[in-house]
């Protein structure tokens, strides 16, 4: 059960870091972008997104900066730091290996 939880958390980290790799986004945009890129299969609600973003920020993998839009709204935009960029490559590799192994066992890819 705990391993499953770690797996889920790890995949969420990968998804967030991957969407921030291209451009800086604020929280709501991150959730929308993940949903759009996954064809609606992966959805982040607010309750799971922000604790994750703050954890990534405490590891200095992402950095949030407040900005004010033309209509006076304040939003926090997150960008990937160089440490986050470095962390992304091994995470990708780990997940690729894991998915390949799972495919060998359960034949999930071609299903």
């Amino acid at each position, binding site marked *: 059960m705990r391993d499953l939880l770690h797996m889920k958390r790890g995949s969420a980290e990968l998804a967030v870091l991957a969407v921030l790799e291209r451009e800086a986004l604020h*929280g*709501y945009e991150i959730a929308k972008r993940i949903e759009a890129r996954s064809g609606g299969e992966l959805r982040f*609600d607010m*309750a799971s*997104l*922000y*604790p*994750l973003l703050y954890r990534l920020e*405490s590891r200095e993998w992402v950095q949030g900066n407040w900005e004010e839009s033309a209509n006076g709204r*304040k939003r926090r935009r997150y960008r990937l730091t160089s440490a986050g960029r470095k962390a992304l490559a091994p995470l990708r590799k780990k997940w690729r290996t894991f998915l390949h192994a799972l495919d060998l066992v359960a034949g999930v890819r071609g299903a």
Partner: protein
Amino acid sequence: MPSTWSPGCAVRDWEQLVGERIGARFVAAHPEVVCELASHLRETCEDLINAGMPHERAERQALAQVASWIRLRNDLERAREGDSMKNQQIRSVWLPGLLTVVSGFGLFNVTEASGALRSWILQSRVTAVLPLPTLHNPGVLFAISWVAVLPLAGALGAFVSWRAGGRPGQRVIAALFPALVIAGLAFLFLIGDVLRPAMREGAALGHFVDAFVVWFLFPAISLTLGTLPFLRLSTLDAQRG
């Protein structure tokens, strides 16, 4: 932080709503997080309304993202404060406390070796002022000599805690560590003695009261006195320094 109203969801002040659900303590500690969550809810709601959903249903659906606000609050607190809070406590309480113990018991050894303070106390009027029956006991005299120099250890602990950004309460706790160590040891001895028949009859209770005063209360007061110059300094000054 001023509340911002959403044109699309004008019936709601989202920051107020988040504040009410997540709790006043969290709002006071993390106003920027409340602002960010409110912004997320407002945008979710606006998108749903723009997609043709009625206002009330859009609000309900936006709020449905959070199944438990208590859980969200705990998750956010852990994510925001978890590591930094632990490190802050180690730097501002445990490390200065350890330093106070080392310096306090270092002074204990110096006092024991020199004996100068003991001679001074014997010749002074301290013995007449303090109404303790066991005051002429060499051990008690030694304890008083130690207590006389303990503010130095208390001051050191409070100073180091202040430098690490410790709040006034944390500075006092760090300074009190030697007294707390003694209290812990005394508690163990007390349990051992209570198990002995002589102690159960109350024969040595007076001895324990004196020991408590001399070995815990006096050192604690003395250590606290040492913290006084550092209690009025603001935490912000320490962080700047």
